[in-house]
């Protein structure tokens, strides 16, 4: 897993999240949906994360909660890659 997974998530979020808010100012626990993440953009975000981290989100993770914050995304990625936080 990369040296700073959170930075990578932020980069992908900036490119694909189409957020109304500035990604740099988001705290890790901030609700991305409240920041303007739409269901359509969330799919693009999932695809970009899968490509970047070379993982596949299983069916059980394909739900709103798993992508609701930077922290939630990181927890999912760490679970899938088996890396330590």
């Amino acid at each position, binding site marked *: 897993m990369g040296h700073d997974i959170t930075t990578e998530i932020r980069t992908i979020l900036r490119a694909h999240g189409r957020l109304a808010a500035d990604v740099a100012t988001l705290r890790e626990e901030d609700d991305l949906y*409240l920041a*303007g993440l739409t*269901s*359509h953009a969330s799919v693009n975000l999932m*695809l970009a994360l899968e490509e970047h981290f070379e993982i*596949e989100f299983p*069916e*059980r993770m*394909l739900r709103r*909660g798993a992508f609701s914050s930077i922290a939630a995304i990181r927890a999912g990625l760490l679970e899938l890659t088996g890396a330590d936080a």
Partner: protein
Amino acid sequence: MPLADTATLVDIARQIGATHAAPAADAVDREARFPHEALEALKAEGLLGALIPQELGGIGATIADVAAVCETLGRSCAATAMIFAMHQINVACLLRHGRSAPFFREYLAAVAADQRLIASATSEVGTGGDLRRSVCGVQPEPEGRIRISKRCPVISYGDEADDILLTARRAPDAAPADQVLVLVRKSDCTLTREGEWDTLGMRGTRSFGFTLDASASKDHVVPVPFADAASQTMIPVSHLLWSALWLGLASDAVARARAFVRAEARRCPGDTPPSAPRLAQVVAELDTMRALVHDGLSAFDRHKDDVDTLGGFGFALRMNNLKVSASRLAPEIVGGALAVCGIAAYRNDSPYSVGRHLRDAHSAALMVGNDRIYAANAAMLLVHKEE
């Protein structure tokens, strides 16, 4: 109060269908008027409180029970069934997502006691038909009040409803998808009707456009994000109840075709009428549609308390697929019934007429447009994996 028993509820619905909905269906369609006879009869039986638990004064029926009622009413008058279904969808949302709040518990008890009819105002001018975006926002006012102004391209039975459940942004400066559900009483609203409701079918739903200006206590805001209410309740329950009533509508068209072929057969015993093989195909399609609807209902029943599954892509795809398939099959089946009966069904003055059925059935593909649903499914399938 009747017992929460599917057979009893269906019997009541069948009775109301025969005595109130069916006799008025042609006039409701022709005059694009509200099916008030049937709605009064449904209220008299307490059916507007069908889903509300008995502890709150309702019947305590399940979604499958209500779907059976929708199907039964759909056989008599699809507009009546649609109004009934839409009301129940709103009740289902309030029950699941509002019930923890004292205001909504009291409100649901009032729906059961007074048989209040709830319309919904989810679409909005400027969102391109996207349920999950709002332009208007909940504006805080002094003394715990809120105000909402919304331009609604359609509010079905907006004139006849007692209350309206609407979507809005959580606040005027919230993101478009950061929505909440708000219940507003008609008595606290100014509703200005815009345009006419002169449509091919579903004419009795009187789905006019309105400009809505509402004031309410802040307690009227459903205490969970609309995103959750939409994915866990509003969307699946809509697709289930709509599909059930379209099944009823298609079933009545097929019943007419069957009666036609039986009459033909009786005229020439020993010769299979030329229309009989085509009827066999139509009946097979109807069975396919019935299986789809019942499968969807049992899937919902299995997962109804599992919000993780209800909110997941797999379940959303399944409910969306039910909707697109049922809405494609309904006009196909009615068209098949028309082909079986020929001119006898094409005429508007014959016992085998299916003109109203056909026109009503064509609304199915438009209620949440199938193209929009396919586009949403296409996006979800990019990341969804088979189990």
